[in-house]
């Protein structure tokens, strides 16, 4: 729960490099440093090769008017691609759609995940069964999950309208119903992970704390908000951070369920459609850079907000 756990390496290494003879110690430190770099270099190189290099390439491409179908017509256009994207109402609509999906899925995942974690933590019998069942959606391929939900709701193969007595409602014929099914599928697929994460956090909260609160007459609701949730703050923040960034990058489900029809296109989908679908690499690269910048700013904002939170929590 503390940051000390992040630095065990430092403590162990310090313990070993005892103040022995000066020259030998620095020699050993140098060898250790070299070995450290040698062991991490391959992993670092692979990660850089496939993220940093293409990202710089995207930055470069975004300054050109460049279509794969017309390589000869490639010409530098400065920042015009960005101007084109930012002036296009479609970009802003896709941003809004993506934000709506984040706002509809992440809070539900957290509440449902917490409920499932509480269930698994508290139940006397059947915990293993619940956990096993929840691991199934976690393991399933996102495309399969999206297909299952699409075929369950679609008006030619689906059973959902029959079960709910909705007649011939065309779920994928309207924007909000389509978004609803997309979000439901995302929630189903990702809540199990959230709940397992929160369960691990919940297990770290000492039972005595809650028992003491109960003795003092706190209701179950008060215990949850005043004792349990504050004690697992760190886990909650990690869950929020990762789920928000993940939800903002939503792509697979939309591809399978609507292919962006009924104005359900996300920012990721727009970038994909420009680059791979229309082979407009220049314009697509500009969308990619903007997507990258939005993810980066969300990450920085959340990390910053959480740091303040954590500092306050420690101070209190």
């Amino acid at each position: 729960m503390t940051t000390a756990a992040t630095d065990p390496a430092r403590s162990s290494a310090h313990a070993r490099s005892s103040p022995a003879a000066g020259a030998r110690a620095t020699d050993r430190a140098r060898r250790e440093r070299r070995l450290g770099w040698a062991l991490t270099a391959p992993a670092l190189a692979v990660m850089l090769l496939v993220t940093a290099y293409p990202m710089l390439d995207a930055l470069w491409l975004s300054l050109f008017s460049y279509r794969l179908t017309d390589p000869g017509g490639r010409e530098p256009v400065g920042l015009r691609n960005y101007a084109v994207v930012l002036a296009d109402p479609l970009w802003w609509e896709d941003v809004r759609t993506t934000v709506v999906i984040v706002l509809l899925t992440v809070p539900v995942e957290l509440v449902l995940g917490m409920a499932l974690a509480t269930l698994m933590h508290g139940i006397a019998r059947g915990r293993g069964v619940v956990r096993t069942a929840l691991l199934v959606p976690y393991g399933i391929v996102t495309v399969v999950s999206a297909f299952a939900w699409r075929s369950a709701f679609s008006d030619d193969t689906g059973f959902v309208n029959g079960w709910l007595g909705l007649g011939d409602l065309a779920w994928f014929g309207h924007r909000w119903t389509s978004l609803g099914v997309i979000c439901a599928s995302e929630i189903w697929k990702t809540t199990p992970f959230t709940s397992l994460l929160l369960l691990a956090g919940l297990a770290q909260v000492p039972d005595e704390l809650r028992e003491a609160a109960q003795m003092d007459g706190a209701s179950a609701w008060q215990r949850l908000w005043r004792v349990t949730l504050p004690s697992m703050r760190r886990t909650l923040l990690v869950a929020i951070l990762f789920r928000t960034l993940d939800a903002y990058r939503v792509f697979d489900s939309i591809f399978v369920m609507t292919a962006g029809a009924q104005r359900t296109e996300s920012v990721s989908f727009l970038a994909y459609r420009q680059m791979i679908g229309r082979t407009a690499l220049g314009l697509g690269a500009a969308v990619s850079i903007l997507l990258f910048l939005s993810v980066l700013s969300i990450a920085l904002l959340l990390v910053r907000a959480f740091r303040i939170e954590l500092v306050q929590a420690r101070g209190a």
Partner: protein
Amino acid sequence: MRRGGRGAGWTVGAVLAVGWALLPVAWILSLSLKAGDDVQNRRFLPTAWTLESYRVVFRSALFTSALRNSIGVSLIATTISVALATLAAYAIVRLEFRGKRLVLGMALSVAMFPVISIVGPLFDVWRSVGLYDTWPGLVIPFLSFTLPLSIWVLAAFLRQLPWELEEAALMDGATRWQAFRRVVVPLAAPGVFTAAILTFLFAWNDFVFGISLTSTDRARTVPAALAFFTGASEFQHPAAAIAAAAVVATVPVVLLVLLFQRRIVAGLTSGAVKG
């Protein structure tokens, strides 16, 4: 209070949770067993069961090659990713050098990275260097996006090992490499295994690279093939065949998950709670 949940409310909650988790899976299973007109009967269960859709799927060259590609690419990516991650995690946990923050920071950034952003440039580069529509063309991006997970899981695991044993081996005159191979590797095996399972699940789930960097059955993976699968003929509704393919794609991961659930849960949550 921990073991207190025995009332009817808890049981109802557990039944609801299990039902919610399994209903969509039961649905594709049921859909995959439907025959002919049943596909569009808009009921949950088929009126007659048939394995015809599975026959269609396994006769389809597109799907069988996709299955081969998915298994091959995921296994290769998992093996290399876990090997590289083991070395990196060992260095992060055991050695004192400045680069370790860089590696951890890099891993975190890659984990948050919007994959779509690099698909265009990769597509462009892969086409010019001949990696487009090949196994290595998928293995390389899989590697870089599974490395963060493997590094985190392994570093969290290695931190808990009894390192005195390695110290003792070094004292007794073993070289670092000998100590690593004879002492550290056997101790770390369960963590390596956990990282391998999680990495495999991650690679198996990939869709973005699968559709962007492949075009034929040379390298197209199962999730990508599923999205483009249209069934045996245009006169048949493709839903049942797609469902059968989806079930086939799901069986290996569900087996993995069920067999190794303790490890998976421990591995998934190790970094987040303590890290």
